[in-house]
């Protein structure tokens, strides 16, 4: 079977007046993967998604869903959508909303199945307007799921959910991927991407600036943090070669460096009594910050 990407942007450019939202973006979503699309506000994530959903056309480049025009109904009958800010009719009940969306798909799930799977039984017959913010998000997630899609677009799916509901939704997402469903996820919660994504794509200023597994992205950042208790003076360590910053956290020093090994060697030599040494690699959050900051400063130069 040929591996046509389920969704693909090729050299996509989109401008709003003088603002360039997408600057030649290449992006492909493969079968069975959960791709987390990350980027600071205004990076072009929403524009990229809305072009893939056929809501907008790129000024240049191309977009395809299942090898077809994203505006074709056939292509969109294979995707499920959860948007960030949608107001649905407050007088309709959750079950009715699911039923209505299900009717648009060729072989949807029974709404009862979705209600069951997402544990919405208690709210299924209540008017949507009477639900809490988190419950509304769960119903919207159900509406994305009910069409039995091959590809799900989820924009900030867990905003407003309590920890328990978030964990439950994460589990459903993992199960879906396991069942072969592909997911494109945009999120502000980097731990969410870290917990779920097979692949991360980081965007800034309309371009892809980093891509790969979470591990690969983290490795992108050579910076590490050495934390320890020492009698050495923070100001003194700051002068060592390779040290970028030193912080003092209640007597624990936090030494940030790209050359952890040599700094560690010197630390052990300078203070034989040094205790509680911990070396931490950058998390996705730090990597993300670093990648986006770097690409911004490149841009400025």
């Amino acid at each position, binding site marked *: 079977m040929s591996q046509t990407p389920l969704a693909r942007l090729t050299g996509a450019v989109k401008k709003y007046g003088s603002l360039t939202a997408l600057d030649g973006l290449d992006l492909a979503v493969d079968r069975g993967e959960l791709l987390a699309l990350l980027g600071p506000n205004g990076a072009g994530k929403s524009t990229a998604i809305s072009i893939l959903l056929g809501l907008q056309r790129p000024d240049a480049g191309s977009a395809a869903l299942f090898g077809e025009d994203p505006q074709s109904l056939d292509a969109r*009958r294979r995707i499920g959508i959860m948007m960030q800010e949608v*107001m649905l009719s407050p007088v309709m009940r959750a079950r009715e909303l699911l039923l209505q969306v299900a009717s648009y*798909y060729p072989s949807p799930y029974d709404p009862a199945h979705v209600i069951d799977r997402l544990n919405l039984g208690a709210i299924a017959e209540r008017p949507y307007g009477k639900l809490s913010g988190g419950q509304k998000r769960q119903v919207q997630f159900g509406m994305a799921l009910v069409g039995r899609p091959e590809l799900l677009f989820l924009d900030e799916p867990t905003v407003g959910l309590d920890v328990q509901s978030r964990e439950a939704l994460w589990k459903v997402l993992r199960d879906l991927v396991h069942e072969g469903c592909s997911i494109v996820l945009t999120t502000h919660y980097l731990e969410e991407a870290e917990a779920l994504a097979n692949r991360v794509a980081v965007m800034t200023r309309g371009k892809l600036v980093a891509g790969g597994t979470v591990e690969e992205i983290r490795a992108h950042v050579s910076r590490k943090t050495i934390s320890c208790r020492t009698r050495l003076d923070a100001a003194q360590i700051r002068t060592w070669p390779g040290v970028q910053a030193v912080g003092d956290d209640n007597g624990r020093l936090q030494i940030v460096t790209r050359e952890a090994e040599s700094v560690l060697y010197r630390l052990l030599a300078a203070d034989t009594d040094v205790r509680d040494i911990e070396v931490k690699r950058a998390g996705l959050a730090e990597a993300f910050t670093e990648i986006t900051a770097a690409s911004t400063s490149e841009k400025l130069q």
Partner: protein
Amino acid sequence: MSTTTAMSTGRILAAYATDIRFELTKMLRTPAFALPTLLFPAMFYLIFGVLIGAKNGPAEGLGTFARLTVFGTMAPGLFGFGVSLAFEREYGTLIYKQALPMPHGSYLLARMVMAMMFAAIISTLMILLAVFAAHVPMTAGQIAQTFLVQVLGVLPFCALGLMVGAYASGQAAPALVNLIYIPMSFLSGLWVPLQFLPKFLQQLAPVWPSFHLSQLALGAVGRDQFGATSSHVLALLGVTLLCFTIAMRKLGSGGMRLLGGKSTSGGTVSFARRVGGLAAIAVSIALFVAGVSGGTAKVVAAPAGTSETASAATDAAASLPAGVPAPADTALSDFDHGSDRTPYGEGWHAGGDETRGGNSHATQKVVDGALVVSGTVGDAIAYPFAGTVFFPSGYEPGRFMDYSGKHTLSFRARGDGHQYTVAFLSGVQVDAIPAMVTFTAGSDWTDVKIDLDSLAALDRQRVHGIVIGSLGPPGDFRFEIDDVELR
């Protein structure tokens, strides 16, 4: 691969049906929409048609019924499209629906059918009230026509609402729609018949789509209407197409494709589409103008007397056409050939006040070259009447003759010595007090001459009927007339 995603026709039809069903459910569950839309027209009709209007007689009752039903029909289209669309545009619902694989055009179709169903419910309520509460006489055919006119008549207002919803913000839309709805229904004579409005407003009336729908509605119940049916249909078609095209262009420029189809890149409109849109606008304006000017020409200048011209007595404007020009004949009736016919018009007809609930009655016959009218004036109602009436241009309400070239009505009379009255039914207001002159019919033939110029209450351009008879006192009466002339 796409075989698995192909959707059967059955499922696609079911999707359309589901959208319709849920749109209707949604609107019925929204009291701010459903209650005023369904109940206001019936409530106003109860007040103006049943409680206040009942004494105005069946003809006026039909007019009130037709006008207020149109008022009801406007609302589901204007609010269902205008307010809902503006909200859904503003709060992301429309974008979401656009991204979903909703079948082509289902968004519009569901709302259209919803509005038509609301119009159907409103019409049914109004018909029930008219028949069972106001006791307005309507045939099954008139009921069916009313239903059809109202249910289809909702569409121009759907298009108008769509246009408002395409431009207005969610916050502004309800106020904006009301600002269109209420003044427009007033200005097109739905609240107060047009002839009570200032003349320039009457002349402006054909600009409003609700004016054209109200004329069709009046036609449906057999009331006279301004202008030909076809001109109203054209005007409504034009308005519908125009508003729809403008709305689609506005929504399309924002990336919305409510009819389905595909947009070109970058949101730019292709040349062909642009030309197509402009052509649609041009055609719709042409249709509307043709309809409006058709209607206007008839209102302002058409001669009355033919079946399709404007001459409704109560719904008509004061700028109503004058009646049919009176023939040059001066002699109306000399009854010499044993007939009560007249050279034009409906001849003389004896009658009482039974239609107003009274018990007066009269009969007439031609005896020895004179018209003998006799009968009894009853006491069942105030202002009883019995006598004979001449309708120069037909007895249907709104048939007028232009007698502006005549100055004197003369005839000879004799009788039982009672006082009798000549009354001229004229002008557009059926319930206005007619111009009246009295004479006494003694045992000898006497000449009666009435100077028309001196009658202030006579609208000589629009004379509907000339009445000669007794207004009482109650009891038997008998008089004869001969040699009736108008010169």
